[in-house]
């Protein structure tokens, strides 16, 4: 049975395998091997029989082929209304076809399905809101990704990402010690300005357990510093954990459900060990969806809830501003036209559409906020969701997909885009570069930090 050295049906479980896979620059050999990868049709069909229940079966069979989902899909709109980009067509021609053929599909078919699942759908779940029958094609693409992952037909970066979670319980090769050390470093770097700033590690019973995105630790630890400072000036009783600190899940994008479970149970383990009153996660959309919304199900928690109540950073921020824990200097409010990117993963998947507007009411000078159209639960994906941002193979398609957001932003006339989601932040950065769009963009933390009033007793004594 042709299985490649890199491209095969085995997940990456060790650091050595991970390094070897990373060493295959750009996944050249990986994709070469994929061309010869055999489809285990028996496994495919038995998996479907075990995991495809009435919901997805019914979705596939009662689709009325009415095409009302077409216009809901930003990728369809941005590809000159190519009928092959209609969500119903995309899922029927992939998952639907696999089911109709009882799993008997070949290598070429799986290549097509892989491209459809990762380059034609970002799992933004928007189409599901426009189907009269309530067919959520984003959910089905998530399911399809799982089937493709099991068969080894998964983009190189996604296999690496899932492997990172398996080996490090983080989306990048950041060991636990490095996380704690980096957080402490950031705190030290800011202790001159905030003399009593500290990062409590593994403190039991704190009000807040803060979890992050490994990318922050690796590349922009300023984000950790900003989070620490904001908790500090808000007077919060907070902590981080030395294990289970990663909120994100590239495994979810990859369709590696086993790794998804490993990842979230590490975070839930920290919750159970430290018993915080609640968890606050960083400004990341998919991470919130993975750990807070989907995670409990992967971990087998029957109430669908995390062990302690868990909220997104925007919820904490809105609350801190509402209750006056954080005070904004009215002079420093944003006074340029500004818009906000609504992240699919915490709005269409967790309903957090009003809290971000509430934050805006505190930090933007009245009259300067310009909402995108459409917005809230009807907003379009940033163009890079669901793993799209990270896949080199589909860079061209991704850049095309960014045009939707570009045009939406330009239509607002905003000079600044707030993006409280790592994926959106990345996509907006890329579209600014790719299409030379003259706007700035930012997470909320650095902006809030600039306008927040620091209580007298926390200021340095000169």
């Amino acid at each position: 049975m042709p299985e490649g050295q890199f491209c095969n049906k085995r997940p990456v479980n060790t650091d050595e395998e991970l390094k070897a896979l990373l060493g295959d620059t750009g996944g050249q050999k990986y994709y070469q091997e994929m061309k010869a990868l055999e489809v285990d049709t028996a496994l495919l069909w038995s998996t479907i029989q075990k995991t495809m229940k009435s919901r997805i079966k019914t979705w596939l069979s009662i689709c009325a082929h009415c095409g009302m989902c077409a216009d809901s899909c930003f990728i369809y709109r941005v590809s000159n209304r190519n009928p092959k980009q209609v969500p119903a067509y995309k899922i029927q021609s992939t998952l639907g076809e696999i089911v109709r053929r009882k799993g008997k599909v070949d290598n070429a078919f799986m290549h097509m399905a892989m491209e459809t699942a990762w380059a034609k759908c970002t799992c933004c779940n928007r189409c599901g809101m426009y189907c009269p029958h309530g067919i959520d094609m984003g959910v089905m693409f998530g399911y399809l990704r799982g089937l493709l992952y099991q068969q080894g037909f998964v983009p190189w970066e996604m296999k690496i990402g899932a492997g990172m979670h398996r080996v490090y319980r983080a989306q990048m090769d950041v060991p636990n010690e490095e996380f704690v050390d980096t957080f402490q470093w950031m705190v030290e770097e800011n202790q001159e300005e905030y003399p009593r700033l500290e990062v409590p590690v593994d403190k039991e019973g704190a009000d807040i357990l803060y979890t992050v995105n490994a990318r922050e630790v690796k590349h922009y630890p300023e984000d950790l510093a900003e989070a620490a400072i904001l908790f500090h000036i808000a007077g919060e009783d907070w902590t981080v954990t030395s294990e289970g600190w990663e909120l994100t899940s590239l495994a979810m994008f990859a369709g590696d459900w086993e790794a998804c479970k490993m990842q979230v149970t590490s975070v839930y383990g920290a919750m159970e060990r430290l018993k915080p009153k609640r968890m606050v996660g960083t400004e990341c959309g998919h991470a919130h969806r993975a750990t807070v919304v989907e995670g409990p199900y992967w971990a087998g928690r029957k109430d669908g809830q995390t062990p302690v109540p868990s909220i997104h950073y925007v919820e904490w921020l809105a609350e801190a501003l509402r209750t006056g824990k954080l005070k904004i200097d009215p002079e420093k409010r944003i006074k340029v036209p500004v818009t906000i990117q609504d992240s699919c993963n915490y709005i269409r998947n967790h309903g957090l559409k009003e809290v971000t507007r509430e934050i805006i009411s505190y930090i933007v000078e009245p009259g300067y906020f310009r909402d995108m159209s459409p917005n809230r639960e009807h907003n379009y994906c940033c163009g890079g969701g669901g793993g799209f941002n990270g896949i080199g193979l589909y860079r061209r398609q991704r850049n095309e997909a960014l045009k939707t957001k570009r045009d939406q932003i330009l239509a607002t006339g905003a000079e600044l885009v707030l993006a409280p989601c790592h994926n959106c932040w990345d996509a907006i950065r890329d579209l600014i570069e790719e299409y030379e769009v003259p706007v700035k963009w930012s997470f909320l933390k650095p902006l809030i930090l600039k306008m927040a009033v620091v209580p007298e007793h926390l200021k340095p004594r000169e």
Partner: protein
Amino acid sequence: MYAFLTGPMFWLSLAVFIAGLFWRAVWYARGLDWQLDRVAYRAWPKEGARGAVRSVFRWLVPFGTRGWRVQPFMTVVFFLFHAGAVLAPVFLLAHNVFLESKLGVSLPALPRFLADALALLAVIAGLLLALRRVALPEVRILTDWRDGLVLALSLAPFITGLLARFQAGDYQFWLLAHIISGEAFLIAAPFTKLSHIVLFFMSRAQLGMDYGIKRGGMKGKGMAW
């Protein structure tokens, strides 16, 4: 012939229709899996029910959702078609006279003019839906022969019924054709996409529960899906 069609065949088709659709609904509900669907149905019955009801209700109201509002042509045609398809057969005087003779019970009947208009509009809307399938590339690519068959099965009783009603040509012929096509519809319903007669409610309710329980329904303001 007439006796057979309105006798054993009527009972058979009605039984297949009801039992078949009932079975599909039961099969659907039994197949829901909290972990695979990732919706904690049992843990949050109240939130789930609220989401389900909202979801079904909003989609039953013309222009009740953004999905309907952004496609006004489709919405008008769709609701005309379904209004005719549901109201005309169920509340038609002739049908209820027939039912009375069979079951001894009947439903209130629509005024003749209204029933005619509904039926006629349903036919026109059905033809527009067929036209839409052919004319719009994004619908054409999805369409296969089954979609044509389902539409034909739905329209045939209306067309034959109207021809019989207005006595165009041979009344007996059109009446028999009407009964046959009507019974074909009833029998086909559980086995084709016509099963959406019940599965629409099931599927919508499921997504409503998904949103009501998991995807933000408990975060305050619900969204209409």
